[in-house]
């Protein structure tokens, strides 16, 4: 049940955004994509989520080409939370989460009590069960993101793709979301591929990190191996000091300053 990307090339408006991308997401891992703005992280997850068509290369999930899997079936295997999500005014948490059942339903197989149970369970897993009848608009940023994640869980996927799940959230909500993702990964064994902006978060929460620069993979591996002063200088153009966080058994960095223009 691994996801494999090989030799991927993506053009947008005749401009090459991604070239020669190789990526492997092993079952049960949390994989983070990091990289500066414009490095192609979002394009990569969107292509994997079939929101953008690849020009060449292959994306496969447990050995099957993603393009050959019917979109509804794919939605039962892989759930995607894109960055751009819209809400109408009077949507309740339960309603939103119930939309996660869409790939399991068909004309002859309508929403039933079993689906209701799965929706309830999805809300319980994210701690949103008590909020089931609340309007999405009355929720805090972190609660809202948890509700979206419940929707993805209602799809009962094996693989979860999150495009910048913590962007626009206060620091405590960022932690709330990342801890939830980690919990879901540990307890349900769901593989997670996410785009993160904060490098320290990536360091702290990932099993494996892919660093993108100018549309290609700059480096990848375990967080401790990937993040070092040279990479930070090379990819992000910052001079940073790296420290050891003994409590969480991971490293972190504090930027010292920029090393070059426009990076």
């Amino acid at each position, binding site marked *: 049940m691994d996801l494999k990307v090989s030799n991927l090339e993506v053009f947008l408006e005749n401009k090459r955004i991604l070239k020669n991308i190789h990526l492997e997401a092993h079952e049960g891992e949390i994989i983070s994509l990091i990289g500066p703005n414009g490095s192609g992280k979002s394009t990569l997850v969107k292509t994997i989520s079939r929101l953008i*068509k690849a020009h060449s290369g292959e994306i496969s999930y447990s050995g099957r080409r993603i393009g050959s899997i019917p*979109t509804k079936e794919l939605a*039962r295997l892989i759930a995607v939370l894109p*960055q751009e999500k819209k809400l*109408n005014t009077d*949507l309740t948490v339960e309603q939103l989460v119930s*939309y996660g059942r*869409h790939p399991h339903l068909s004309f002859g197989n309508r929403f039933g009590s079993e689906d209701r149970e799965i929706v309830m369970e999805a809300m319980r897993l994210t701690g949103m069960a008590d909020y089931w009848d609340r309007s999405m608009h009355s929720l805090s940023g972190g609660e809202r993101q948890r509700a979206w994640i419940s929707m993805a869980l209602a799809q009962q996927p094996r693989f979860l793709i999150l495009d910048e799940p913590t962007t626009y959230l206060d620091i405590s909500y960022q932690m709330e979301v990342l801890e939830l993702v980690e919990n879901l990964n540990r307890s349900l064994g769901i593989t997670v591929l996410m785009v993160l902006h904060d490098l320290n978060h990536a360091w702290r929460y990932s099993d494996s990190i892919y660093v993108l620069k100018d549309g290609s993979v700059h480096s990848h591996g375990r967080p401790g191996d990937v993040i070092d002063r040279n990479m930070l200088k090379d990819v992000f153009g910052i001079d940073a000091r790296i420290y050891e966080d003994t409590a969480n058994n991971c490293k972190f960095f504090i930027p010292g300053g920029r090393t070059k223009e426009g990076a």
Partner: protein
Amino acid sequence: METLNIAKKSAVLWAIFAVFILAIFLSLGNGAVKISISEISAAMISEEVTANRQIIWNVRFPRTVAAILVGVALSLSGAILQGIMRNPLAGPNIIGVSAGGGFFGLLILILFPQYFFLVPFGAFVGALSATMVIYLLAWKDGVMPSRLILAGVAISSIFGAGNNALMTFYPERVSGVLGFMVGGLSAITWRDVNMVYPFILTGVAAALLLPGKLNILLLGDDVATGLGMRVERTRLFAIGVSSLLAGAAVSVVGMLGFVGLMVPHITRIFLGSDHRYLIPGSMLMGGTILLLCDTLARVMFAPMEIPVGIIMSSLGAPFFLYLLRKGRGHHGS
């Protein structure tokens, strides 16, 4: 914000249905000749040929049925378009469907008035081809709603120019087409009704497949794709359904604007944005509002009657603005 619960929404739907039935009787009973409810029921049952029975069967009934069909079709068309475009300004008369139908209808009425009976067919073809042109113009690796609306507005304005050109070159024929331009239901016969009802019923049946999909599309194309929906295919189907409905409506009533834009908004204020309620609610509300406006159009200056389009816009628009200002619901985006 408090969320409407299902029981309350069902109650509102039933209330609209009750007003709808009331509106049917008002429409049947009022006009140049007033007919009481008991006479209406008598005329419906008895075989005896009376003047009132003649009026009811040959004048009032087709007109009432036409008003319902047109109101349902335009409102449904608007509700679907606003749903798939996620844009509160979408409506059959904004995105060019009505303009296309209107132009073809006008073309026949002005250039070939002897073929006036082809007007419904021409309007229908015009509406569908306008939709197709707009869709192709907006296509670029898929259709983005905003581009579709802009293309529609542009096409509308081209057809508008065409209408004005026709009227400028043939000023002596303008009076004959005024009814079609403002939208009216006078002189509707069973023949007109028979011609369009298969299209409208087909459209309604197809629309009933859409509510769940429209709800998911409201979350954005990316989320909908992630949930396994084929977004472009669904959108194309929905646009096809709504242009079928709008085209059929234009062919009976002419260029009746505003219903398609206004009714879904009014319904949304009462029922919220869940399309499982919004779609049937808009249908009932559309039929009701058109019936009431058409009845008013007949009795306001009786025995003279004015085109329903005028009533619709002059009374409907202020009422609509009032509801928008005090309403709590608005379109999500």
